[in-house]
């Protein structure tokens, strides 16, 4: 009981405290987890900085409300999972798996997403270079052809989900994959670049015209961040 309370208050103070910018950029493996608790990472740009591609209002709701709910829920179910483990309650542990996948996935996906976006005056939209550019050209012929196929994949998602450029950890090749809901890119594939195709990611600005959102988002893609993820 005591440990639960301590953990909860630690999570709250961590959420309130603004993490230093450098640790935000460190990303998933860095300090978005404090004492085993996930915390909402700061954005490295202002909410309005991605306009006109993504409105400030969308960014604010998306980060402060949606992403934060995944963080809070993940921590909550994570605590329940630890309690179930402590009691050796296997049924409860299994019942919690989809919730860990969904909320933990939501946290991972959004953290990576914020990092792979950037305002145009901070490199957003500048084409990839080096190894990633080469990998894309080899697999898709050109960056434009890649974008077209990526947008087709995004448009083909039935319901909520994400499209990712991933690297196959077995072959090293890059490919486009779509994931349902908040399923994160884990296991055989390494996330390189993700685009959120949930309606909350664009609806206030684009409504049902999601193809316009998919077209506009390339203006604020941070290819430098994507390059760093490629191994």
């Amino acid at each position, binding site marked *: 009981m005591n440990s639960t309370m301590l953990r909860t208050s630690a999570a709250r103070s961590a959420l309130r405290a603004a993490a230093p910018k450098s640790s935000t950029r460190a990303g998933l493996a860095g300090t978005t987890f404090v004492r085993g608790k996930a915390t909402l990472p700061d954005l490295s740009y202002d909410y309005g900085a991605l306009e006109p591609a993504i409105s400030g209002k969308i960014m604010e709701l998306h980060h402060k*409300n949606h992403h934060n709910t995944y963080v809070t829920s993940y921590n909550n179910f994570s605590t329940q999972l630890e309690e179930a483990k402590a009691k050796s309650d296997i049924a409860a542990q299994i019942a919690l798996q989809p919730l860990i996948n*969904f909320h933990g996935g939501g946290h991972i996906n959004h953290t990576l997403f914020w990092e792979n976006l950037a305002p145009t005056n901070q490199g957003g939209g500048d084409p990839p270079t080096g190894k990633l550019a080469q990998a894309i050209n080899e697999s898709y012929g050109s960056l434009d052809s890649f974008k077209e196929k990526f947008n087709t994949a995004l448009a083909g998602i*039935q*319901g909520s989900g994400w499209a990712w450029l991933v690297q196959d950890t077995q072959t090293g090749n890059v490919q486009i994959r779509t994931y349902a*809901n*908040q399923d994160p890119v884990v296991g055989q594939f390494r996330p390189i670049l993700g685009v959120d195709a949930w*309606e*909350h990611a664009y*609806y*206030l600005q684009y409504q049902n015209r999601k193809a316009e959102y998919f077209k506009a988002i390339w203006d604020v893609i941070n290819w430098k961040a994507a390059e760093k993820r490629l191994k």
Partner: protein
Amino acid sequence: MRSIMKSSVAFVSFLFTTSTIASDQQPFQFEAMAAPSHTLPALPYAYDALEPHISAQIMELHHSKHHQTYVTNLNAAMKTQAEAVHTSDIPTQVSLQAAIKFNAGGHINHSLFWQNLAPASSPEAKPSSAPSLVSQIKSTWGDEAAFREAFKAALLGIQGSGWGWLVKVETGAEQRLAIVTTKDQDPVVGKGEVPIFGVDMWEHAYYLQYLNGKAAYVENIWNVINWKTAEERFLGTRADVFKLLKTSI
């Protein structure tokens, strides 16, 4: 040639549904390969009739854009399907299944949804319009409040896009009520399953008004549930419920 003929068949069926049939119009006869064209059903109320619980802007986009897109894509998929059937192209037929399920599901779900909503001030929006259904709800969940709590929990538990439905499940002479959630646009079409009313939990159904506050949407939707329609579906058969789809062909 074939595609031209098929287009004209689709066009004729469109004319039929809009009641502008010329007297010398040939009765439409579907060839083996032609697919009937589905059309967007009209709403039984104005776009702003569900305010303040669902805004007119949401209703207009939801009906005239989202639902229309499912209808358009369903017709396109069915047209390709008819060609694949005609040419005995099995791989193409199988590959079209997902698109047909998604878009037909979207058309079915939304058609049922519009009919199971009603303006809050109308008598249809009162549970007293559904005496038999409410009686079975009470015997199943204890009372109406407990049912609403259970329904709400199911709706809020959906991970991603989907729907929540109250369903009558018939097994032989027995029947029971169940709360069922479905993902994306999967429709409730199982054997013995009669959808009573559904609530759309896609973000497009509430986001412009409720933003991330979906619990408030789920709370407010009770004000505009059409209990009269629900009672009719509860007392009727599965075929009765889906009859409305035939009227939008």
